[in-house]
């Protein structure tokens, strides 16, 4: 029949693939918050990676005669009460804080997303049990739980990872479950089921990619939360063990001298603020980039 041929000629697709790549490129540099996030976070990561090269002094070695100096050409941001260079400690601190911040998000992200996806997709008693557990966790403030857990588990990096993972997987579970509930009603999921695809395939290939963007965006703000938690733990003296350079413990050390040497506590505080801003920008930018409207 000629009808099909005629229909075909009328519906010749154009060179879509090429148009798509050009458009997504434009989306990248048209997205100021994403660019700002990449620049700030990228710079911080670079500093952390290059710490041994960039830091002018050893961050841990004490030099008591030079204690509590004001900024000078030798020590750009001065020295702390043990004579350690503040700039070097900041640079080395980036390693610790960024590493813990990003890694501590990864574990609950994976665990929470998987549990949430299973609960949302299968429903039933598993969903009911998981959601009650989630409610219990949500009833406690995040920081209080983390601090308590770190107290129980003992100070140190491993405890911090564990404590944060135990507390924050619930948020991912809740987000992903909610999104799965929405997406699984879409006709393409029904279509996949009619296509005879297995539950595992439907859940992980057809549903999960469409729900993860929300979790990724939340993860970005969660990094900020985690960095603040680490800093708070450091400030309370139960975080990363001294003398390791870490921003929270630097603020703690500096606050005693707030009236005489205010830079000591203020500078690491500012660095925390800038880091948080950078990561939130990154999150906002990713949110714009990953929303389906952008994918046209």
């Amino acid at each position: 029949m000629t009808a099909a041929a005629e229909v075909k000629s009328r519906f010749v697709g154009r060179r879509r693939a090429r148009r798509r790549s050009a458009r997504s490129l434009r989306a990248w540099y048209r997205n100021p918050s994403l660019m700002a996030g990449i620049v700030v976070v990228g710079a911080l990561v670079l500093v952390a990676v290059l710490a041994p090269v960039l830091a002018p002094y050893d961050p841990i070695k004490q030099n008591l005669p030079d204690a509590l100096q004001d900024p000078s050409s030798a020590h750009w941001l001065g020295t702390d009460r043990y004579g350690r260079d503040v700039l070097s400690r900041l640079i080395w601190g980036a390693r610790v804080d960024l590493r813990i911040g990003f890694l501590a998000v990864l574990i609950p992200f994976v665990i929470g997303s998987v549990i949430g996806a299973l609960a949302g997709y299968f429903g039933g008693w598993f969903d009911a049990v998981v959601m009650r557990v989630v409610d219990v966790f949500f009833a406690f403030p995040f920081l209080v739980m983390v601090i308590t857990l770190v107290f129980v588990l003992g100070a140190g990096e491993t405890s911090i990872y564990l404590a944060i993972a135990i507390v924050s997987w619930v948020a991912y579970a809740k987000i992903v479950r909610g999104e799965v509930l929405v997406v699984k009603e879409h006709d393409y999921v029904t279509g996949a089921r009619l296509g005879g695809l297995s539950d595992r395939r439907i859940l992980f290939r057809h549903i999960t990619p469409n729900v993860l963007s929300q979790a990724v965006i939340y993860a970005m703000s969660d990094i900020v939360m985690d960095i603040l938690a680490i800093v708070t733990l450091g400030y309370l003296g139960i975080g990363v063990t001294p003398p390791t350079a870490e921003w929270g413990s630097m603020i703690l050390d500096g606050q005693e001298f707030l009236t005489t040497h205010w830079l000591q506590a203020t500078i690491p505080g500012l660095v925390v603020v800038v880091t948080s801003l950078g990561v939130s920008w990154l999150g906002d930018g990713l949110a714009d980039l990953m929303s389906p409207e952008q994918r046209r």
Partner: protein
Amino acid sequence: MTDAPVLEVDDVAKTYDVSAPLLQRLFRQQQRTLLTALDGVDLELRRGEILALVGESGSGKSTLANILVGSLPATRGQVVQDGSAIPARRDKELSRRIQMVFQDPYSSLNPRLTVRAMLSELLRVHDIVPRSEVRKECLRLVSLVGLDEDALDAYPGQFSGGQRQRIAIARALAVRPDVLIADEPVSALDVSVQATILELFASLRDELGLTILFIAHNLAVVQHLCQRVAVMYLGRIVEVAGTDEIFANPRHPYTRALIASIPRMGDTSGAADLVPEGEPPSPYDLPTGCRYHPRCPFAEAQCRELDPSLRPLSESAGRVHLSACLRASDLPESP
């Protein structure tokens, strides 16, 4: 075209229990509330035909479609394919046989899979063609629905509604189904695009001998596409006949109303009298007797008491004309 039914719907009913929770019912002394979506539907689909299923919103068309593809279990009755009943829970092979094209082409395609990824996944899972021929088969499928090769590497978001519906059709055809259920496949599309999709269905029937159940809420859409029309009202089939027959000689007042409601240029006849007034009765509380009688201009005393069943009236060209109207043989021309 043979007349052996590919798919039979045998007395299928679907009721939903929408009662208040048990405790509340006990306190307030309420009865159980049942919603009757389908109430004993019989239908058969013959190989190579397009059968239209027409009815207004809430008449149970989509519920029937969902039961046919196994997304919903029926409360009563069964779906029979090629002589054997098929259950609602289906394995890979059983679900392959009946595929569906959905109404909304914007929610029926996964936004994160390219057309190629979507099609080749189905081809591989069902071993439709040898692995080495998957690429070729994908190309064949998109050209079958009138798209060209470029479409394979694009994402659904890059297509228009009509093109998306073509992809959805290609997806349904990928697993080589025996029957295609099209649930209002054109009602979400622009009028100009509707015609091209209808043409596509017609050419698929002619070229592949595909059997299609075409669901629509409007008779105009199906007039030139389908061989037979089944009209549905409140969970029942009220009239079934060949398309020409049903347009020329409708034997149920509801069918007449549907035909009268098709807009026509320069139409000045008194057809407006036939258009049913008001909403259909609530499916929670079906009227006694014929369920169309509260809106029917021809209703008599017996219509309020007797619940009519689908009865054969005549037969022409192998197509039986069935109607569920008590006055089917003596319907006056106008009320």
